[in-house]
């Protein structure tokens, strides 16, 4: 009886929208099974956390009031007075951090399994932009509760932009909405966080997912070398989807535990006239860059140290983004080796400098 009703709806939709591509995907898409299959799930977890972000973000929007005199108070109201407000705010903060964490894992797993290579160059590039946007979400969202730590961290963060030659000062003014971090900065960070970034992120995410579905799962070279008989696959539906769901539930359990046992502190309200508190730190995913810039001397040659640092990170970021298009050597093996070492160096550098920031 029920199946007949579903069938009826399906037929109704099929008649109008031709559901064969979706049917094909469900019926025919296969996922390779091998030693590195676990990495296939990282993108899905990032997507799940993004969905939590959207859901909790929308709920927070119902009570959050941007503004110097209202932002902090409204967040305080959310976590103390609104039913389950504490849960939603903590879920939003924790899932944001976990999302960036899983995007990083997803990116490095794609990198080390060589999945970014032809024909998935654009999937890699869109993914890279999604990471940058996620970091943008983090940076803009950090300021929104308008608390002391976030205020001064934003001040330091936006100050760094000023060292970019020629356009640095103008960039800083554009970012801050004036010379200093004020209510105007809060307004534009709010705008960025809830409108501008979500619009671009969602568009890029759709493109990214479209590429993934269109090209299917990447198969590692060792897997490709196997004979057809040796290759093992599982159907995308329902096997892979169910496994994905299982992992999502596990992530949700971790997320709920973090939310309850390690609530995100609100701290003191930002006061522009107060002296900067001890322990101003950026979000952990900016820490490796922050630490690097701190270590650089005031001047390298005749250029400002921080400017050199930012220039180096920009170049490194560009190389990282364009790595599917770069051939370091004509010999494929050597090229793979160089790329692998670049990856290892980048990963170790980021881990080491992040740890250093917290020591």
């Amino acid at each position, binding site marked *: 009886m029920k199946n007949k009703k579903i069938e009826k709806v399906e037929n109704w939709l099929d008649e109008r929208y031709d559901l064969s591509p979706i049917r094909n995907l469900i019926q025919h898409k296969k996922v390779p099974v091998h030693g590195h299959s676990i990495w296939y799930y990282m993108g899905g977890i990032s997507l799940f956390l993004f969905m939590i972000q959207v859901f909790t973000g929308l709920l927070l929007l119902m009570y959050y009031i941007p503004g110097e005199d209202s932002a902090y108070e409204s967040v305080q109201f959310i976590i103390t007075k609104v039913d389950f407000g504490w849960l939603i705010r903590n879920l939003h903060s924790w899932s944001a951090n976990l999302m960036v964490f899983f995007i990083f894992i997803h990116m490095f797993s794609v990198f080390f399994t060589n999945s970014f290579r032809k024909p998935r160059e654009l999937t890699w590039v869109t993914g890279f932009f999604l990471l940058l946007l996620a970091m943008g979400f983090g940076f803009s969202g950090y300021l929104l509760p308008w608390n002391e730590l976030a205020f001064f961290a934003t001040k330091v963060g936006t100050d760094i932009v000023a060292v970019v030659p020629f356009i640095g000062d103008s960039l800083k003014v554009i970012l801050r909405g004036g010379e200093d971090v004020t209510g105007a900065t809060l307004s534009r960070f709010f705008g960025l966080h809830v409108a501008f970034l979500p619009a671009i992120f969602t568009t890029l995410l759709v493109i990214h997912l479209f590429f993934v579905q269109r090209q299917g799962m990447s198969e590692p070279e060792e897997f490709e070398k196997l004979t057809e008989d040796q290759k093992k696959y599982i159907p995308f539906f329902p096997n892979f989807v*169910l*496994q994905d769901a*299982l992992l999502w539930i596990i992530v949700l*359990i971790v997320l*709920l*535990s973090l939310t309850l046992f390690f609530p995100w502190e609100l701290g003191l309200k930002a006061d522009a006239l107060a002296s900067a508190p001890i322990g101003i730190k950026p979000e952990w995913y900016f820490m490796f860059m922050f630490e690097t810039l701190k270590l650089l001397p005031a001047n390298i040659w005749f250029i400002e140290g921080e400017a050199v640092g930012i220039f180096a990170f920009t170049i490194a970021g560009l190389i990282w983004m364009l790595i599917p298009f770069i051939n370091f050597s004509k010999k494929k093996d050597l090229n793979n080796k160089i790329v692998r070492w670049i990856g290892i160096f980048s990963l170790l550098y980021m881990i080491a400098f992040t740890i250093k920031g917290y020591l």
Partner: protein
Amino acid sequence: MDKKNLLNICSFIFLFSAISLFAVTSNDAPKSSTYEDECINCHIENDIMPEHFSKSDIHWQNGLSCAGCHGGNPNETDEEKAMSISNGYVGVPDKKEIPQFCGKCHSDLEEMQLFQPRIPTDQVSQYYVSTHGKQLKLGNMDVATCTDCHTTHDILPASDTRSTTYAINIPNTCDNCHGNSELMSKYNLESIQVAEYSKSVHGIALLEKLDVGAPACNDCHGNHGASPPGVISISHVCGSCHVNNMNYFNNSTKAVEFSDMDIKGCEQCHGKHLIHKTNDEMISVGEASTCTECHSEGDDGYIAAELIYGKLKKLSSLYDSTKVVSEKVNIMGMNNIEIEYSLKNIRQNLIQSRTLIHTFDTSQVFEKTNEGILASYGALKLADNEIAEYFNRRLGYGVAIFILILLAATLYWKIRSL
């Protein structure tokens, strides 16, 4: 060159010129520390400089040399002529003459205004109203005059931490005479005032905590017009800082009764030099009670003291338990913002209740204590809610995790069976 740059350069030149001009002016001014005249030269040469002479002395610093006070001609090299009566030499004044000696300048407003526009010039007239001054007039040479407190040739402004009249040093300055039992016994006076004071709440604040806002001897007894406060003036003396207590007391029925019975207002309960930090036991009917010094069991005052003490104790213990609970809520990671806000109000109620004791009106005290007690109950209820919420959250978490684990197990089983 644009207008802005031109303006900047002009401003710089102007500022530079102003600084240079100021520097020249400053250099041209006579520096007292290098000031020389024949008095100084001769006294140094013969090694007969006055006792305790210091170049930090405020008069020396302001260019007033020996002749400024002692007369004579400071430019005359001949000793006889320099210190001759014809040259206005007055020499070392007798103790009895010292107030007028200093008053030559210090009572002259026109003279003193040159140094400080708001400087008082009534020290000498105040002094003669003081017990010290009155006794000096009678020829008593034991009393303090200007130099006993301010020194002779090492006089520093009262704001200087080295000065004998700096707030923290004043008890010691007074103690030089008032701590001398031999001298005081001649006049039937105690010599333990400063010893007592240093153990008092005021003395501890001033001498141990170095809180210069705390009263020293002069803040209650006056400076130059120092005298023991009378019965009526005591509440005014204490009330110059404890304003509310004074107003409540003066408007109470007890003010007249105390005065009629020759009982000293504040001193009767709090003491004079050895004033301890107040506590609620003082208003009780127990051993530390001050009320039972006059009231006995069964009379109205005794009953009032019992009732007030009971209420204060209740509010005080409620305040303490609310504070503990608020801390507990905070440690639990729950919201204690409103509880903390209530705590501030409860504390205020407690302070106000204790102050209102000076009205000797139980209804006024109870109005405030009841306000605090109600606020405490409210805050404790808030704390209870937060603690309950803390456990509810854990319960909710447990249920949610149980369902999620069940779901995960089902999924796992389903995946295995595929």
